[in-house]
């Protein structure tokens, strides 16, 4: 979680950075290694475009449309989602039944992605493991987004003592390395799919609070909010009709990136023996089990690793592109 925390928490805000001025035109005037550079950030097409844009800050005018890499990422995510939802219907083998004669088989016609150390079909386990990843990440992100988003909007909208108290609590929780909190809670509460999802969701509340508050602070300054107030709108109406619609999208974009973090977290828990109980297949568990056969059959580890990597990468890409599109500056985090 910490990696994301910093992504959305540019520290210059706490200290007022001198170098903040010109982020919007990110061409250095030093030397001229790139003659004929385009105006503004000159976003490259495709996926690297999303990357450069996100890093360099949004250019004055950018093209609509997301590029090929973005849609590839979306396609992969949809595929993972379909696997998770229809795991039982899809024509894959049983993920728990071992094919004893074909242990550690390489990918082939019998087992498309090979088998693991017990001879279980890797493809089937990947498809069923997607279910765990999707369940945990969607539940956790939903909880964090709804609760954290609510607290953040309230804090950012009403300001004053309430904000101070809320943000102090949030900052104290953030003073703990996230994994340490998670470990302690998991050990004493249990480790079913539901419990893990709930705890991860609960632990991610503070970070959503910060994102939602920052966005709310920015939105609350805008002219349409003032207009609405001038026309005599009550707080509840301003919140529901003006603030909320403008905060939801940036927070959701953040939620996509956070989903990737949660998927990695499940993998981490599997490595620590704290994820969902065996023999239920999870991606993290598959990587962990495969580690034993690193010598003779590295593909047992590599295939689920690649699946996890592609999923997290896609989530980052999509989340990052959307974030750039919605132009969330970290200015008030």
């Amino acid at each position: 979680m910490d990696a994301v925390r910093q992504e959305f928490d540019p520290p210059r805000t706490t200290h007022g950075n001198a170098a903040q001025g010109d982020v919007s035109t990110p061409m250095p005037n030093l030397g001229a290694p790139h003659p004929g550079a385009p105006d503004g950030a000159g976003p490259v097409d495709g996926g690297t475009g999303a990357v450069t844009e996100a890093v360099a800050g949004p250019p004055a005018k950018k093209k609509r449309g997301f590029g090929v890499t973005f849609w590839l990422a979306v396609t992969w995510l949809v595929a993972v989602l379909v696997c998770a939802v229809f795991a039982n219907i899809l024509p894959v083998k049983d993920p728990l039944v071992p094919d004893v004669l074909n242990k550690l088989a390489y990918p082939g016609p019998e087992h498309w992605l090979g088998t693991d150390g017990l001879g279980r079909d890797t493809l089937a386990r990947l498809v069923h493991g997607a279910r765990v990843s999707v369940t945990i990440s969607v539940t956790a992100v939903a909880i964090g987004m709804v609760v954290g988003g609510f607290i953040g909007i309230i804090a950012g909208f009403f300001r004053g003592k309430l904000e101070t108290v809320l943000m102090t609590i949030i900052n104290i929780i953030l003073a703990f390395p996230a994994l340490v909190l998670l470990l302690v809670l998991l050990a004493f509460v249990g480790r079913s799919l539901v419990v893990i999802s709930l705890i991860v969701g609960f632990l991610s509340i503070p970070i959503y609070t910060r994102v939602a508050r920052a966005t709310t602070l920015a939105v609350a300054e805008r002219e349409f909010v003032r207009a609405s107030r001038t026309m005599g709108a009550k707080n509840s109406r301003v919140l529901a009709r003006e603030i909320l619609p403008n905060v939801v999208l940036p927070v959701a974009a953040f939620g996509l990136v956070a989903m990737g973090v949660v998927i990695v977290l499940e993998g981490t828990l599997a490595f620590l023996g704290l994820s969902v109980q065996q023999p239920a297949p999870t991606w993290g568990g598959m990587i962990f089990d495969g580690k034993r056969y690193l010598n003779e059959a590295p593909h047992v580890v590599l295939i689920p690793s690649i699946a996890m990597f592609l999923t997290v990468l896609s989530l980052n890409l999509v989340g990052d592109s959307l974030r750039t599109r919605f132009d969330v500056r970290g200015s008030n985090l």
Partner: protein
Amino acid sequence: MYVLRRLPSLIATLLAVSILTFLMTSLLPGDPALQILGAENATPEAIAAVRSELQLDDPLPVRYLHWIGDALTGDFGRSYRTNEPVSQAIVERLPVTAEIGLLAIVIALAIAIPVGMLSAYRAGTRTDKVISSTSFGLLAVPNFMVAILLILVFAVWLGVLPATGWVNFTDNPVQNLRSALLPALSLAIAEMAVYTRLLRTDMIATLQQDFVTMARVKGVSNRRILFRHALRPSSFSLLTVAGVQVGAIIGGSVVIETLFAVPGVGRLLLEAVLVRDLLMVQGVALVIAVSYVVVNFTVDILYSYLDPRISHGRSSARV
């Protein structure tokens, strides 16, 4: 002084962190006495005896004061399982985690600073795109995956570094470094990507400042501009984030130490958590959280030295 002015908030945070640690481990379901005794020995009398010995029947605030009072004198109690003093276990394991973590940060910075500067200097070019996409991709690689790939390449295929185990520095400095290298690298990769992206963004902004143009007009060499003029004003965010990222490194060390069988604090916490060794969990969690808070406090202070405007701005406003 800036340090003194920040001190009350540091103390308040530490206090809050200690209360949270205590509550977290005390309010959770399950009777510690039952866990210590095990189900078969748990007669009502035995449970009562253990509860009174651990003062579990006192009200929470009293228990907290007892615990924190002892903790301040370095006494976190003893492990249920091994009867080893918690503080001794922590003191033995802390240097290992600190060494790996520091090594990871040093490696990450040593690569990220030149690469990030190059990327900013050549912003928009092919070099920049390659660097940016690579670091974006690396953000999606979990540390345990890096660890497995490193083991596969350096231990299994090349056989040049040990896959697991730990040698103390005092026993054999060279072997110690060899055993620390792969764990540190596993933690460093993601950090490197984070630092590179950050430095690139800030550097690009700095390179558009007037003083850089001025330096160029005066004919200062590119290298001198980059390293002497632009690096320092571009490194503030990097420093703060490096502090925040210590949290990621501590979290990561739990996994990495387990994977590489390294006897550090992270693994100590995990083992304590797995057997529900309450006092050990409390002690280790407190030490980890306190170190994290103190590191970030120190970074904050360092920051004010690097960028004098911070303390000057505030103090002149107060006078």
